[in-house]
């Protein structure tokens, strides 16, 4: 373990102290978490990072008391499953009731949809103080303060179900702040939020002076500017615990453990530079003649999909876009929340909400599908919704993969399904229940199942949402392999780095219209205007191409 705490002796009052902590989930032989000692000071900002399953969420669940009070529950606490102690401002977590802990430590979770419980914004923020039986004046005071500190006064009176992911996450943050905790945990707070929403949330976290903040995050780059310290986890153990300023010297280590590190950091490390400034890194790369990896974009003159999509909600036009897709092309579609990305995809697949009206002119592989029903369009177009688990309706992976060919009466599907199983590395799971597989495996089953019935065009709605770097990279490589075989993809995403690394073309939608369309290199030049910050790799690329 790399611990460099002696480089910055902890002068702060300890806010969180972890001692000899071990937690093992029921039915698992290996502990999910083993931490001998960890101290987080009052007012300190700490980033906890690592790939999925590394123990990050288990650690924060032990700090906020969810473990052991909720899971496995106080009555079921077994010393062989949970031992050691966490202290929050002197309170022993395992011996302090959860409602008392909730006034000291607050937690913002990854998915705003499932953590917001109430109907309107004000009720949601008041929920915690009301549970504490505070007088109504005090509840209202806290609600007002939390609203101001998060900057969401304009959302007052809004129904929570009408809010975008970013807005909802900020409401959830205000609800946590209304408990006035001294320690705040943000567990992957931006994973399900669009870039603008993420930026607003990170600005909020940055502004929380005086509180101890623990941020669990895959994307190190976004939080590095304002954290004091970085903890790397893997296999339930702390692998490194270093000051944020030392990260550049350890990028190899962090990359090795699956943490998303911008390529520019890796170049800086290899060039011996102690900076993240892309201009300086680019100058040094040019000076030394270092070769830089750039994705080869596929040129796809043969169009397999051409469409004009118009979608109306009453008299309001939600989408008015013309879109095309080349053979073997991976097309990224980006835009702000509400720009019409998912609506356009649903209109193409024929699965729009009934209360929306659409006018779609669609041709796929030369076949006019403009008036086609869902089933008819499905012969040519695969559609994978964001919550792909909902598509897994069969008892085994093999049944799932053969679902579409069987239903469509496609003959000679064995070769195609066999090929998909091989490409998607699902050989050993063919008799497993799809819902029992890991996240990445389930996603591969959903993709394979969508493509199994002689379909060459696939529409993927936010397949990168909520996934760590390793999973997104795996998805990108799978799509590239399939694209090389002639499959074409439209991928709606908020992840500009994914687009940069894996897409051949990028379309940016704004207010339902195509605002930008072209190679990512050219689209990212002006995408910020439409709420899409380019990835660091693009900045490096641009600097390298400056004269």
């Amino acid at each position, binding site marked *: 373990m790399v611990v460099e705490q002696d480089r910055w002796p902890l002068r702060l009052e300890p806010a969180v102290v972890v001692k000899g902590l071990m937690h093992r989930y029921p039915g698992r032989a290996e502990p999910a978490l083993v931490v001998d000692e960890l101290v987080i000071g009052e007012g300190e900002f700490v980033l906890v990072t690592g790939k999925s399953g590394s123990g990050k969420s288990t650690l924060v669940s032990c700090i906020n008391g969810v473990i052991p009070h*909720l899971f496995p529950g106080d009555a079921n606490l077994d010393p062989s499953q949970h031992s050691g102690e966490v202290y929050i401002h002197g309170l022993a977590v395992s011996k302090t009731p959860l*409602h008392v802990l909730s006034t000291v430590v607050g*937690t913002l979770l990854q998915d705003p949809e499932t953590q917001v419980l*109430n*109907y309107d914004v004000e009720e949601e923020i008041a929920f915690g103080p*009301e*549970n504490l039986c505070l007088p109504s004046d005090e509840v*209202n005071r806290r609600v007002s303060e939390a609203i101001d500190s998060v900057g969401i006064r304009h959302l007052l009176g809004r129904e929570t179900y009408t809010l975008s992911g970013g807005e909802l996450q900020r409401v959830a943050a205000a609800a946590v702040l209304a408990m006035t905790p001294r320690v705040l945990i943000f567990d992957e707070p931006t994973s399900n939020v669009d870039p603008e929403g993420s930026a607003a949330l990170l600005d909020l976290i940055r502004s929380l002076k005086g509180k101890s903040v623990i941020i669990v995050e895959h994307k190190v780059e976004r939080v590095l500017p304002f954290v004091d310290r970085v903890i790397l986890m893997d296999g339930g153990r702390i692998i490194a615990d270093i000051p944020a300023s030392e990260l550049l010297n350890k990028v190899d280590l962090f990359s090795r453990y699956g943490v998303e590190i911008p390529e520019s950091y890796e170049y800086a490390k290899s060039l011996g530079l102690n900076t993240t400034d892309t201009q300086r890194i680019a100058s040094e790369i040019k000076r030394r003649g270092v070769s830089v990896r750039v994705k080869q974009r596929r040129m796809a003159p043969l169009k397999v999909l051409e469409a004009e999509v118009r979608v109306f909600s009453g008299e309001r036009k939600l989408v008015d876009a013309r879109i095309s897709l080349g053979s073997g092309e991976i097309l990224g579609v980006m835009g702000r929340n509400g720009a019409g990305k998912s609506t356009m995809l649903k209109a193409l697949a024929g699965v729009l909400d*009934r209360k929306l009206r659409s006018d779609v002119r669609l041709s796929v592989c030369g076949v006019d599908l403009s008036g086609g029903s869902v089933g008819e369009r499905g012969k040519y177009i695969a559609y994978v919704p964001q919550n792909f688990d909902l598509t897994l309706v069969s008892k085994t992976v093999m049944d799932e993969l053969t679902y579409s060919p069987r239903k469509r009466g496609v003959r000679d599907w064995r070769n195609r399904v066999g090929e998909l199983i091989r490409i998607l590395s699902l050989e050993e799971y063919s008799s497993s229940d799809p819902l029992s597989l890991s996240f990445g495996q389930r996603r591969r089953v959903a993709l394979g199942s969508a493509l199994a019935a002689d379909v060459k065009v696939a529409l993927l709605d936010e397949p990168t949402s909520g996934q760590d770097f390793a999973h997104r990279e795996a998805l990108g490589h799978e799509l590239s392999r399939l694209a090389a075989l002639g499959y074409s993809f439209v991928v709606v995403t908020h992840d500009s780095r994914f687009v940069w690394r894996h897409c051949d073309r990028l379309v940016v939608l704004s207010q339902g219209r195509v605002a930008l369309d072209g190679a990512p290199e050219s689209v990212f030049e002006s995408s910020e205007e439409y709420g899409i910050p380019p990835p660091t790799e693009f900045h490096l690329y641009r600097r390298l191409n400056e004269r």
Partner: protein
Amino acid sequence: MILGQLADSLLSWLFVLVGFTGPLVIVFGLIGLTGFVEITRFESGTSFYYRLNPVTKIVLGLVVTTISALSIWWIGALLTVLLALSFLTLNNGRRKFVFALLLTTSTVVATIQGFAPYTAALTLEEAMKVKVFHTLWVWPGYFSYMGFQHTLTLESVIYSLQISMRFTSVTLASLILVLTTTPSGIIRALSKLGVPAAVTFSLVVAMRSVPRIFEAIDASIKAQLVRGLGSRAHPSIRPIYYLEALISSIVPVLVFLLRGAKNTAISADTRAFRAYPKRTYAKPLTYSKADRVTLLLVATALVVDVYAAMHGYGRGIPYVG
């Protein structure tokens, strides 16, 4: 002879099919999942119902339930008509009124399908005060189940229609509560009525989950249709495939919801939920003049109904006692 038996069999199956799929066609085909979401979710408004205290609306629902259960069928029917018409006063009322009518129709069809062929002759004699039945259809012997020979009579249809009036008014009164009251309003009202917080919270989470459940079912069904379910079938039997997709969606939707439920539990418990037996509220419940008038009216209706039933007027079950 053989052709006649074949026609009997075919028609018998057709009636069963229509009986089973009719309510589903109404719910999924005409109301649709998004429509269902619309009539199970609160939307803000300013008309009478929205201004009532949630406690008043719960009391209204309870009184409607009691009166419908105690009284003769046409009182339930009258309440159904009045409550359905009152949907017109809601926000986007005409659309909600149509949905309410469709939902009522599906309830009536489902009740007739569920009761009419199975009601024993003795029960019909007592309830309808008749000795002679007008047979509409007799299903072949292989339809008999647990001793019931499927027979449809005009009297059994009328009796089932009357029974359905006990359900329809209660359904509409419940929908009015849900459509015009925020989940937290319901929590506060139920707490005021002494229901434990854990129970009310479960109800509120369930209410908030209803739209998510329908959206998840909708996504799962559509994903199956995209992948070819029913694509080779004649459009007239597509509802059966819709039903198949609905049943297939249950497991993935449950798994999806359970994964989210863990977050919901963490979100509530890390914000001091169940810290104390009671909670305070930022906005205390207040009673307006409209509440007092409504409560007085429903209390009067209840007293009159109970008094009338006790004295043999308009009893729900006239053949007992």
